[in-house]
């Protein structure tokens, strides 16, 4: 791990966990990486369409039907301004709240 890199823990939920067969992945990123960068890394490493599922190409934000939490807080509307830090825990839900 270089001095300018960070490690975040990406936790997978719902279909992502079921179809990939993994609950979490440690990802090394550059300091102050954004959520889209994390999605790219996950997609490359795990071969699952994270970017398509979690990014609305027209708005650049999350689609209505997914949730991403960074350290327990939702990042909707802050997808580009959220800069990841070393040790961050990112939980990816490919679905939303109902019930």
């Amino acid at each position, binding site marked *: 791990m270089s001095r300018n890199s960070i490690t975040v823990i990406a936790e997978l*939920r*719902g279909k992502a966990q*079921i179809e990939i067969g993994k609950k979490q992945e440690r990802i090394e990123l550059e300091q102050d990486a954004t959520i889209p960068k994390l999605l790219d890394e996950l997609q490359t490493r795990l071969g699952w369409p994270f970017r398509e599922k979690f990014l609305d190409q027209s708005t650049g934000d999350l689609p209505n039907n997914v949730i991403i*939490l960074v350290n327990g*807080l939702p990042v909707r509307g802050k997808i580009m301004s959220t800069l990841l830090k070393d040790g961050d825990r990112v939980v990816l839900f490919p679905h*939303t709240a*109902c019930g």
Partner: protein
Amino acid sequence: MVLRIDLSNVKIRKEKLSKELAEKYLGGNGFGVRILYDEVVPGIDPLSPSNKIAFVTGPLCGTVLPIAVKFGAYAKSPLTGILGESFSSGLFAEKLKNAGYDILIIEGRAEEPVYIKISDEQVEVKDARFLWGKTCWETEDVLKDEFGTKRIGTLTIGPAGEKLVKFACVTVDRYRQLGRTGIGCIMGSKNLKAIAVNGSQGIEVANPDALRELAKETVKRSSGPEIEHHRVYGTMGTVEISSEQNAFPTRNWQASSFEGAQEMGVEAMFEKTFVRDVGCVDRCPIACGKLNVVKDGPYKGATVVGPEYQTAYALGSNCGINDIRAIVKANEVCDQLGIDTISGGCAVAFAMECFEKGLLSVHEIGDLELRFGDPEAVLRTLRMIASREGIGNLLAEGIRKASQELGLQELAVHVKGLDCPGYDARTLKGTALQYAVSSRGACHLRARVQVPELRGVVDYSEIEGKGKLVKDREDLFSLFDSMIVCKFALPIFDMSEMTKAYKYATGIEASAKQLLTVGERITNLERLFNAREGISRKDDSLPKKVTDPNQERFTGKEQLEKMLDDYYDARGWDRKTGLPRKEKLIELGLERG
């Protein structure tokens, strides 16, 4: 048409549905509240023959629209003493409509146990002594045998309803329930074990071709991404979303997230118990229900359509249970005995905290070891509640009364007597407000504010703007519950579709604004009903477990008071009393100027 049955003297009447009622209140929620307001005398004992139950359908129910299959039940609640209301689905609503009835009103009290059999015009009140003591499922099997078909609508109560457990539910077509506010208890008080209905007359609509096209479009849209979360995961998909955001009450609200959420969440369900998707009716294209069967272990064979999220909270995290198989079993026991899973689970969780803190005497608890995380303790206590045995007799009164008797009110998590649902009101501020003001007591369905809060569409920690948000969403979902359209369909069926559907079904043209005004009218009438029972601002409160500042998360009394002011302002209600102002009532046609 209104079918009215007085059980005291077995009088059956068929009355024309008034045009004014249909136009001003649409159906469902509107019908239910208006009937209670007009016909239930203030101050009556909810278990007296004077109380009434109105089973209500909506104008879209029974038509080709596959997301309009629900119905409601309204009565003065024995659990809360105010407006009692619950919705369910299944075949009952469309069979009742096909038999020619929009509303079924039950009055009086039978001298001996009876059940009601409706076959189109033929309506009979029949001896049910041979059914008394049977579970909901056993009763339903007998009724289906009598009709000679499984394609009937059935409402049954179990031993809990017979024993007047204040939160007894009504089981609908085996796997669905009129869960909240004790409608099953009122059926029990009327000696009414069951209702079975079959109808074959068909339903006329104003423009069948246009409605059929709209139904086709709705089915098509329901396969898209907007509603995938309901289709694939059902409500269980919310468990971990909620727990991760500290919105999943645990061990009688002693924590806001559950360390066992993954073991009992949606992935565990798919891995361990899931069999297939099940719709409220076969033709529902969303089919958010999940048939779960325990395949191994001590609860092998337990079968339910569920658990839903709220059941996973009440019988799971709130009792410290992290095994999805044990939750399925507890869900099955509740369904068979006729216990609301939310209030049942919350009663057990309350007793567990009392026990673990040494606050229950041997006299109260006997040899029962009530420890969080013990599935056998949950099952045993549920059975004791249904039979009113030992501590079960006290818990059967609901946690408000039980906690008063024990002098332990600070451990009871309810609003106006109704146990809080499984979204943590300490974390989610708008949700706290909706619990405080909901007409039936703590309710997660009337405004569904937890949805934008958990999705991050609005900031859940913010109190600004929540008054208007709750008001607008209450009016919207009052409308949904009057039409009656499944709330989960909102992403694919909004006000544009709603106005079309109403026009195609009834021939009446109404704008979105006009329909939403009906929603507002109904919410105001609900408040008037409750006001007659003594409800005002003082009762729009939150339990101590939510407001206590001596914990990591809380929604303080000052925060609540601010949100209440905003809410009353948005409603046009008086801040001091929390009741509708005269001008508002005149504006909504609830009072003459």
